[in-house]
């Protein structure tokens, strides 16, 4: 099954990207308030964007 020589590295690469994404999400405090994150979508506040912040939104 020589095709696995291609498929396995590709999958490992995608997995590594996924792992990297997880690390990023940890660092950027994405899991600090799971209860609030679930509730937040229920509040529309007028269906308009928020004003942009000066620094990066963290």
């Amino acid at each position, binding site marked *: 099954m020589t095709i696995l020589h291609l498929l396995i590295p590709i999958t490992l690469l*995608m997995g590594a990207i996924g792992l990297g994404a997880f690390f990023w999400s940890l660092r950027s405090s994405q899991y600090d308030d799971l209860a609030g994150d679930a509730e*937040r979508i229920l509040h529309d506040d007028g269906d308009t964007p928020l004003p942009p912040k000066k620094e990066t939104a963290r």
Partner: protein
Amino acid sequence: MMNRLTTGERQAAMVLSGMVALAGFAMAIVGRGDPMGVHGWITLIFAGVLFFLVGNVLYGPEPTEDRSASYYDDPTKVGILLALFWAVVGMGMGVWVAAQLAWPELRFDAAWSSFGRIRPVHTSGVIFGFGGNALIATSFHIMQRTSRARLAGNISPWFVLLGFNLFCIIAASGYLMGVTQSKEYAEPEWYADIWLVIVWVVYFVLYIRTLARRNEPHIYVANWYYLAFILVVAVLHIVNNLAVPASFGAAKSYSAFSGVQDAMTQWWYGHNAVAFFLTAGFLGMLYYFLPKRAERPIYSYRLSILSFWGIVFFYIWAGSHHLHYTAIPQWVQTLGMTFSVMLLVPSWASAGNALMTLNGAWHKVRDDATLRFMMVAAVFYGLSTFEGSFMAIRPVNSLSHYTDWTVGHVHAGAMGWVALITFGSIYAVVPVLWRKETMYSWKLVEWHFWLALAGTVIYVFAMWNSGITQGLMWRTYTESGSLAYSFTDTLVAMHPYYIARMIGGALFFAGAVIGAFNVVMTIRSAGHQAPQLDYPTGSEANEPAVPAAE
């Protein structure tokens, strides 16, 4: 719509469509006499029309609104409408092709209308046309609302949406002309595949840029599902479609892989197309629109994150369960089987999460057909994933492979899960987008729901029966050790089920038509109100959300 673009943007749009038109023209010349040439003309016309549409208003008034103070919903709106268009076309083709199984004379003796050609029009039409547009449109909506920021571009969303639809048109027209790579769900030829990669890269970049400029620090879980869908589908698409064109002027190419290697690649792609296109993306839809419509937060946000990672890692290797009892090595088949069974855990976690979210809101499910669409979709998701894991087990597969049971499974998932969650989401989002209080007619939503449910149930039951019948008949031996039934015998036995299948599909199609009508009437109905959560009549629900169990 055009007057919401600045002059600079309109110019950019003209340049882009001009370039595409030129490319189409080049294709038309280089590929003359070949279906590729026809595609060139189609591209030229498509882009040309856009060119002139924009050109007509090029020097029209500039937009006056403050862009940072509003979301960009025009592409979303058009995307929803396109999704409904493709639903009608794709499902209509499905009814026709199903009818051909029962009554082959419905081919009308033409090449373009033969079963082999209109079948992929159906599959691509519903998966890419209906599903793809729905995903693109809802992703535009969800990423903006959850990021509390406007789309990071005013032309790129159009490029993505319209470019994707160009791909769908090329695909469908190509099939009718006999253009196909013969790879399930990857039939379009090399130039269409390249075009899709370009569109997809722009889609991914747009998504990342919008998230990067978010004003809400947290990235809602639905976005993760959409991003996984976009990224993985891109990789799968590229790898599976690696091919050498026979010539640059012909719609014909040779796959980079052959035999057993190609089979594995195809089903590594094929099953992951189901996993990431038809599951991950629509789970994103589910995780946003279901809680929003039920006005309750997801039962367990943590679980949605865990099942995200579970699905992402377990699905990738399930593909070889499509290849049981073929020439690929036994252990590869077992590998696929093992991962397919393990996959049940994160899948049911998602389905369970969705249903538990509705705990305490069952009266809303009873009263609100839109919410009911989503709930039933979650139930079918659970059913189909169980059925799939079950069918992936080799002995079970020995009965089901090549039979109608596989078709039944696909449609339980496609009609019961994918289509129902899409329609539910469309009915939830249309009033918000067009600033109406409700859909034009909640009764029509109810009609749609019951037609869709009835159609799905009839279809699936018919296919369970026919599939198992086929499987059993194919493996029945006489005492002397020869097969008891000829293939034609089994075909004859299938006839009533083919009719039932067509009826089920027709009901579903009718529901889709009603839905399209309802949406159009909603858009045209009078009155622009401030967007409110629209309640169907008789269901006032202002309870506070119950704290989720974390």
